[in-house]
């Protein structure tokens, strides 16, 4: 199977999942306690007004017709209108999405800048005290309530030291604390993978050759070891982008970072159901696409992985 056909088949396989997400969200919103039409009209509105809105939104039609309406407008990229803002949901999402992407990229950058050196250090002497660094970092990553960590960082850097801003997104400095917070979720995996693949790379023949040529340890580690350990590290970075989405909801709330996560939390408080529905479908779609891209990159980078992946796909 060529790479091109592999990509097409992965995308086609994702379609039923996507349809499932849309159906699930449609059902969830329809079983909600409370009448969306009444919600839009407000509590003081007369019964006729509510009925008019119901008609306008098509809420008086049978459920399957409502779904067909909803689905066809989705295909046109129309996610409905936000109750709170009165604007199309897709516009709201697109206005906030760049902020979440920025946060994700800078967090990943921080995680790499801190994680890879720690991984290398713990790989050089895996059974010494420094070898435990990777275990500790990865335990912190899976046990830390990051919203709390974020608040602690604010207390330290914004309140005590007064060197970094705590809320908002006005200047480039504003991204440092939220990105650092989110990076703790990612660092554990990066340190672990770096350690494992460095240990493997350092035992390989070309590193032994490099050593016997009399190259300095530094050159051996960085040029011959790390370079060969990069593939798994890059892969794990891609896979993690998905788990960033969950963490972003919490981090954005702590730092009032105006991304999609904050928008989601706000829309839940306003009971802005079209917006909630739109954001969750958007999030899940991004998550699926990211997974596909990672699989494709995987296959592209390493021919050995390519073989097994494609065989697996055919088996499923």
């Amino acid at each position, binding site marked *: 199977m060529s790479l091109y056909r592999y990509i097409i088949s992965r995308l086609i396989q994702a379609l039923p999942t996507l349809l499932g997400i849309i159906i699930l969200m449609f059902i969830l919103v329809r079983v909600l306690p409370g009448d969306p039409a009444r919600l839009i009209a407000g509590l003081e509105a007369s019964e006729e007004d509510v009925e008019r809105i119901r008609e306008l939104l098509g809420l008086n039609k049978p459920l399957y017709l409502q779904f067909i309406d909803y689905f066809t407008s989705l295909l046109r990229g129309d996610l409905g209108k936000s109750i709170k803002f009165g604007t199309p949901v897709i516009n709201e999402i697109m206005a906030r999405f760049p902020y979440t992407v920025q946060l994700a990229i800078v967090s990943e950058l921080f995680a790499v800048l801190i994680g890879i050196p720690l991984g290398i250090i713990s790989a050089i002497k895996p059974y010494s005290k420094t070898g435990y660094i990777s275990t500790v970092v990865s335990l912190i990553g*899976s046990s830390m309530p990051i919203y709390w960590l974020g608040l602690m960082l604010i207390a330290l850097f914004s309140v005590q030291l007064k060197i970094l801003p705590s809320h908002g997104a006005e200047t480039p400095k504003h991204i440092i604390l939220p990105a650092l917070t989110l990076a703790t979720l990612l660092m554990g995996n990066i340190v672990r993978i770096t350690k494992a693949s460095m240990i493997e790379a350092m035992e390989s023949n070309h590193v032994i050759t490099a050593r016997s040529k009399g190259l300095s340890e530094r050159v051996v580690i960085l040029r011959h070891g790390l370079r060969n350990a990069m593939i798994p590290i890059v892969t794990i970075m891609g896979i993690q982008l998905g788990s960033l989405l969950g963490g972003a909801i919490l981090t954005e709330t702590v730092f009032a970072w105006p991304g999609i996560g904050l928008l989601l939390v706000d829309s839940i408080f306003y009971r802005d159901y079209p917006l909630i529905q739109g954001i969750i479908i958007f999030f899940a779609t991004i998550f699926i696409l990211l997974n596909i891209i990672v699989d494709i990159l995987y296959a592209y980078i390493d021919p050995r992985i390519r073989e097994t992946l494609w065989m697996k796909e055919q088996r499923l």
Partner: protein
Amino acid sequence: MDERTKVIIERLQEARKTQMLLMWARFKANIGALIGLILLSGIILMAILEPILPLEDPLAFNLGKSLEPPSLSCLFGRDEIGRDILSRVVNGAKYSLGIAFLSVVLGSSIGLVLGLISGYYGGWIDNIIQRVTDVLLSFPTLLLSIALVSVLGVGLTNIILSVGISTIPVYIRLTRSLVLQVKSEEYVTAAQVIGKSSPYIIIRHILPNVLSPVIVQSTYYMGLTILIAAGLGFLGLGVQPPTPEWGAMIGAGRTYIFSSPHVVTFPGLFIFITALSFNLIGDGLRDALDPRVRVLIKKVKI
């Protein structure tokens, strides 16, 4: 029962005992796991002893002493309306542990049953269950719980339901792959050949073999659900104030981070310690398991 059968049964029981002892030995050798066990016992003990400890009423406010910093007479200080944070933290332990435990029990039992059915019977039913699992797995766990909470509404039962349901898909996948491993074993074929019914085989021969990995997975999930439930509380979508749930305490206290950071420091520290203890125990249990099974267990994250 003749003499020979008795001997065989005895030997089998002995073998099982040795296996358990081996697992315990491997677990004990893991310092991290022991630390986790000690930390967790401390938290559980705290939750149990709470009614008899000489603490203030966690809900009693005292506006004259609001935001009092930690001191010897008041170890963790007081919150915005003068409630004693120490007694609130101690009182909150049962919420965190209880929510996590009940949602894991809910998620694992539903996931286990669906996974057993999916893996053992295969065919169309397997197909349907797996496609639904695909859909659920395309949400990060936290997002799925938020989506469910936004529909079900806040409150203790709804939190447990939402968090529990969002853990189901991973359990289905885990159980299914374990069943597929066990299904081809000779004793299962033998039971099928002598005409035992499928439910009998599932319960008698397959379930015991998939249970330990599911338990290990649950240990990790205890850590995660504590973080998620507290996260929901922090966002205002979980247990509601004035209940001293740790996440809700952080959510309510975050406004005071500029003047009185102690209000959020202690609840957060306890969330961290509790989640950490489960992750440490999980690591220990996982390493004590059979390596063939170990790879199937997913380390879970928000």
